[in-house]
């Protein structure tokens, strides 16, 4: 039991890293970013590449990734997505446009990754066993979990107790109303999008220390992230974290107690059930 | 104009949203060919009551019946087909469809399932009835507010309702439009349709309604002829400082 809980929670850390960024991007900037997973793989590539070519510790890479991915994602939002935001009259139209545009973007990023490294990003960092409450796990997974927790807490505090954070939350609730009370909506959206992309890329760098990735694996993470965000409720960081927790523990539980062949199926089943009984997600506000 | 037979009957209806009581233990009857006004301050539960009759919500307690048949446990589409038509507080039209198509929508799925040229002809009749047949082929976006309301009314009438629910149909109209609107409802009344209306415009209530049900904080506080209830002290208290009565 302890085993399941600990492994499950550590896996949740991974999922939270994957989903928190997307939630900011979708919840605040209203961009359904299908290239989320590819950004994650870019982060992983950076860690792999720097580690294998120049022995740079992935932890250092994480710090290097922050400014680069923030700028990169900001540019993507500013120059690629703002025109779509401007031309779409309804949320539905923007959703369609952003699905189309970011799908194209995901291909471009895959192309870039392939031209750098088409094979597996195989390396190991901190792949050391560690015992927690009698359960064995690895140091790199623990590290990813801790960073995820740190980011989650920091994000929560920032969103709830800082001026810019409150502005971000206001935009998440309503772009129109926020505009009316003098919030610079395009700027806040751009920041939220860039911040979301940064979290995702940092997640990728950390995840690459224990999962062997390659250029085309982004979609796996995008799917997981979408599921978690929707399950937790759009715009709800808390929801994403709890949904990630549920998924992690359920997957590990099913793998251990039932059959590993059913892990992913059970994760999706939980998702499907939650939406059946709470169509707006765990923490989402009901809108009609 | 008291007619003995109740066509619509609301008995002990309550609606709670979580801990919030929107309507509590409300009862009233509507007789055939009668025009009943539901009035009360903002947030008193009028629209919730309308939503329960038309089937948007199910009552938490109590029963609503149409000609003695229980309807409060039926889905909206069945209630509509059994003869309850409504308009919405904020006009709800179908922007992708033309004016005529919007009205046809009302004719097709009602209890007289019209289709094809029959539905089209009937829709034209309804548009003429509300006075905007000339705009049949315009897009919805080109209409003024009152015309949008007329289209919505035509759509509802196209379903040939036995009971018509008008949810603040006159709200937001300018004085000229208001006069036109009141005249239109008068005409409907003269045709003998049973109408339940939620309204804030007191002049309209005085001139249109046979009877009024006054609710405040979800509960009925008075019922009777408009002049009678509007001079009731409790009703005045309920409204004071709260609304424009």
């Amino acid at each position, binding site marked *: 039991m302890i085993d399941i809980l600990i492994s499950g929670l550590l896996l949740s850390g991974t999922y939270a890293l994957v989903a928190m960024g997307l939630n900011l991007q979708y919840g605040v900037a209203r961009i359904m970013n299908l290239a989320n997973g590819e950004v994650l793989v870019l982060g992983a590539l950076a860690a792999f590449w720097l580690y294998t070519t120049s022995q740079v510790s992935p932890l250092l890479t994480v710090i290097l990734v922050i400014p680069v991915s923030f700028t990169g994602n900001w540019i993507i939002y500013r120059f690629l997505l703002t025109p779509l935001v401007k031309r779409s009259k309804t949320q539905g139209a923007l959703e369609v446009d952003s699905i189309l545009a970011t799908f194209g973007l995901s291909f*471009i990023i895959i192309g870039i990754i392939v031209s750098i490294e088409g094979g597996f990003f195989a390396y190991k960092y901190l792949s050391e066993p560690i015992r927690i409450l009698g359960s064995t796990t690895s140091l790199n997974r623990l590290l990813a979990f801790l960073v995820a927790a740190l980011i989650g807490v920091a994000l929560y505090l920032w969103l709830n107790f800082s001026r810019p954070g409150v502005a971000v939350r206001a935009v998440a609730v309503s772009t129109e109303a926020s505009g009316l009370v003098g919030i610079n909506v395009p700027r806040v959206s751009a920041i939220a999008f860039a911040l979301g992309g940064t979290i995702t890329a940092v997640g990728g760098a950390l995840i690459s220390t224990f999962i062997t990735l390659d250029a085309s694996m982004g979609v796996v993470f995008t799917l997981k992230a979408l599921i978690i965000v929707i399950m937790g409720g759009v715009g709800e960081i808390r929801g994403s974290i709890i949904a990630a927790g549920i998924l992690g523990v359920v997957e590990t539980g099913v793998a251990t107690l039932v059959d590993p062949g059913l892990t992913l199926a059970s994760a999706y089943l939980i998702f499907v059930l939650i939406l*059946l009984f709470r169509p707006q997600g765990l923490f989402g506000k009901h809108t009609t | 104009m008291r007619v003995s037979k109740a066509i619509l009957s609301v008995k002990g209806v309550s609606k709670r949203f979580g801990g919030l009581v929107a309507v509590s233990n409300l009862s009233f009857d509507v007789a055939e060919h009668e025009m009943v006004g539901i009035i009360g301050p903002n947030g008193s539960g009028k629209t919730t009551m309308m939503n329960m009759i038309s089937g948007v919500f199910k009552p938490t307690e109590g029963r609503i019946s149409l000609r003695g048949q229980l309807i409060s446990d039926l889905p909206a589409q069945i209630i509509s087909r059994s003869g309850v038509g409504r308009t919405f507080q904020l006009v709800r039209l179908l922007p992708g469809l033309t004016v005529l198509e919007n009205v046809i929508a009302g004719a097709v799925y009602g209890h007289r399932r019209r289709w094809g040229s029959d539905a089209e002809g009937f829709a034209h009749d309804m548009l003429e009835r509300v006075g905007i047949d000339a705009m049949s082929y315009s897009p919805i976006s080109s209409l003024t507010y009152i015309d949008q309301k007329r289209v919505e009314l035509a759509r509802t009438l196209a379903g040939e309702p036995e009971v018509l629910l008008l949810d603040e149909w006159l709200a937001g109209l300018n004085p000229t439009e208001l006069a036109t609107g009141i005249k239109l409802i008068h005409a409907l009344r003269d045709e003998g349709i049973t109408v339940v209306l939620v309204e804030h415009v007191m002049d309209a209530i005085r001139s249109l309604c046979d009877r009024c049900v006054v609710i405040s904080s979800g509960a009925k506080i008075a019922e009777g002829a408009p002049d009678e209830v509007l001079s009731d002290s409790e009703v005045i208290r309920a409204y004071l400082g709260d609304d424009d009565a």
Partner: protein
Amino acid sequence: MKRSNWQELIWAAVITILAAFWPMLANGYWLGIGVDVMMYVALATSWVLFSGPTHYISLASAAFFGVGGFIVGTGMSDYGTSFWSMLALSAVVGAILAALIGLATLRLSGVYFVIFTLGLAEMIRNLVSWVQNNFLGSRGLYVLTDFSDEHLFWMLLVTSCSIYLVGWIISRSRLGFAMRIIGGNETVARHVGINTSMAKVILFTTTGLFGAIVGAIIAPRWSYIEPNQVFSPQLSFFVVIMALLGGSGRLWGPVVGVIPFLLIWNWVDANFPNQSILVLGLAFLLIVYALPNGFVGRIEDLHNKMKRHS
């Protein structure tokens, strides 16, 4: 989806007859593209049947397509059944599956519906893999038939036409009109007496039925069925993208979306073998920015302009 008229049906018939000659004019590569076009036309048109009028973006195409392919694969490989019986079974299973999904998704709207269908498709993919692994005891699903591309092309053409015809009939029926009203405003739809749940489930079932048929027809072409490939979520995205690119407001929208999309795709493949995915992505963005309302929007704009000039 707008109501279709007789003129449109005649055009469709003419194009279908012309298309039927394609295998005589083209072979090899161009016939192969024809098969691809037909496959996506069929999938995207059946997608538009439901998603066009309701504006619900479904990402469940791969679930139906995969079920079709998988049933044909399992049946022919493990139980020695005929292709045709499995094709029929696929249609039935696809329809039942879609009806169940339809019932489950009734309360969802917007992005919740989008991701729900995606999650459900993924769940089905994993369940199918697990069942195959544990109960069917399969040794790889070989679908070895004597069908050539001509046959598949015609089968898909017939499927596409059936979908179109069904769509055309629906668009002129009370059901089709009901769907337009539901797409406009679901509350209104209920209040004019439409059983919205029933209408949505019926339409979604049609989508699933045809999706499974297409998957079943494609199985002989792939010869070897791997669950993870027939259930690939990418297929769902491609179907949506091609349909939206064409324009989902018209039944013929997918046709004008699929053809240019696949032609561009093939051009990119042939000319940028090492970076085809990157160039494809760029081409994609270009289309999104240059054609805000899809090809249908563009065509109708031009049509309107021409009308105004004459």
